């Protein structure tokens, strides 16, 4: 089985978000970058499927050279090789186009990625890629097993879940608990240094551009209610906050 895992290089979940250059650029200084947590789940499941069924796992990132440490970590976790499309991942359509372009050259049985990236949270790249390739895309997938040409999967929907059967090839957006996150072993880290990481030029253009960033307005001070007067909260919510 040939699996492509698309990963994003994103600020750590605890990173303080700020902008520079007149609020037109993300301020990377002092920010730790990680493989998107949802992408990490996708990669872990891909490595498990390879162990179970044989085959290869290729990691794909659309990003600049500063994404290489995160790509190497994915190789250390168990991917066989990696491709980096050398470009800023400027919008969902642009990223999807790169993935579809590569998938058209190499036929993959499964294209896995996180349900959304942790920076722009668009959650549409899997859907765009599926449409571009003319194959089904399903998200967010919580369980995935493969038997022959058939995938059995569970995805989350509002207030519950759906069990779905589908035929490969497929594009899937993944989330927990599809697999346990894997920590790279010492052997994995050493072998990752020599695994192939191919850098390729991008194709096509983005359809949207960010003009400006902004932070949310600061929250006002909290109004503390003494525990003896718990009941007064109801009145405050009704008449002051007007939410009841």
């Amino acid at each position, binding site marked *: 089985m040939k699996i492509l895992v698309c990963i994003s290089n994103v600020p750590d*979940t*605890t990173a303080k*978000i700020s*902008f520079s250059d007149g609020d037109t650029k993300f301020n990377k200084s002092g920010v730790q970058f990680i493989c998107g*947590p949802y992408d990490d789940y996708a990669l872990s499941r891909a490595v498990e499927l390879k162990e179970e069924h044989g085959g290869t796992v290729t990691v794909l990132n659309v990003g600049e050279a500063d994404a290489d440490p995160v790509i190497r970590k994915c190789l250390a976790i168990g991917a066989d090789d990696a491709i980096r499309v050398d470009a800023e991942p400027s*919008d*969902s*359509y642009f990223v*999807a186009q790169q993935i579809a372009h590569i998938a058209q050259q190499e036929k993959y049985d499964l294209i896995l990625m996180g349900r959304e990236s*942790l920076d*722009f*949270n*668009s959650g*549409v*790249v899997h*859907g*765009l890629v*599926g*449409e*571009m390739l003319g194959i*089904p*895309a*399903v*998200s967010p997938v919580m369980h995935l097993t493969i038997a022959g040409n058939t995938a*059995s999967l569970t*995805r*989350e*929907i*509002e*207030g*519950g*879940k*759906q*069990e779905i*059967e*589908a*035929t490969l090839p497929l594009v899937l957006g993944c989330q*927990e608990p599809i697999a346990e996150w894997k920590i790279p072993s010492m052997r994995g880290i050493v072998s990752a240094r020599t695994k192939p990481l191919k850098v390729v030029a991008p194709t096509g253009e983005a*359809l*949207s*551009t*960010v003009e*400006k*960033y*902004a*932070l*949310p307005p600061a*929250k*006002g001070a*909290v*109004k*503390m209610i003494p*525990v003896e007067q*718990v*009941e007064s*909260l*109801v009145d405050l919510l009704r008449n002051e*906050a007007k*939410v*009841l």
Partner: protein
Amino acid sequence: MSVLVFAELENGQVKKSSIEAIYYGALVAKATQSTAKVLAIGASNSDTLSQLGNWGASEVLWLQETWDSAQIAAYAHALADAVAQEQSAFVIVAKSVLGDAVAASVAAKHKAALATNVVALPDHAAGVTVKRSIYTGKAFATVKLHTAVKVLSIKKNAVTPEANAGVAEVKHWQPSSNAANTGIKLVATHKASSTVALPEADLVVSAGRGLKGPENWGIVEDLAKALGAATACSKPVSDLNWRPHHEHVGQTGLKVAPNLYIACGISGAIQHLAGVNSSKVIVVINKDPEAPFFKAADYGIVGDVFEVLPRLTKALQ
């Protein structure tokens, strides 16, 4: 030219989030001197659909198919066809599992710029720009859309719908061709029987590890019932299997935007706050006065949830 809104039906009714999308679409239509049309797919009735005129829809294209929500390709095929027939400049969906999936497919079919998590009406001053939530609610981006067709997935509370008496013309509608079979087969759907769906809820009562165990959720459910609220939980609670995963609110779970979010026994880690920071009013109840959540709250009570929740419930009844 038109603005086309994709409306989701549930038990014959238009989902609340779709009403917001229709109202949003009507305001976009007004700003661009065009009309707001709705594509509704599923079982319903003409009376219900004609009432969408109250929210600004001039016409409803009604496709009476009862596809399950896993048939994304069928929904997307129909919507993309309607976009072509109606020459829509804007396609509006409400953010949901189905809505975002359909939006992505339609954007790819029409090579249209796509913005999700949109929080405000478009600005038409120089081209078309929209404000969207990014970094899990920790920031916003103003995004310029460069294509003739623009697809927007709007977040809850992007607009506050106000009804104005109106009647939409309901037309029975069919796509010009059928979608190819994608081989996606829905085997089973498991849905919680809770009365209020969390993603759409205006009021949410959420609880964390401070509840000490799943057997203690009765006091959370009682408060939620007294309020007519949905229940939610923190990530540790879902990881421990005290509550189902679809109730998990936070950076890697559901992002909610209710009018009122009551957090009980949740310390307020930055990852949890990321899932709730779009809430209008936040109430935090925690026995630890140093809990970081108080800094993000509008109202705070330092106290034991086992004492505070039943008293609140009683005060509401």
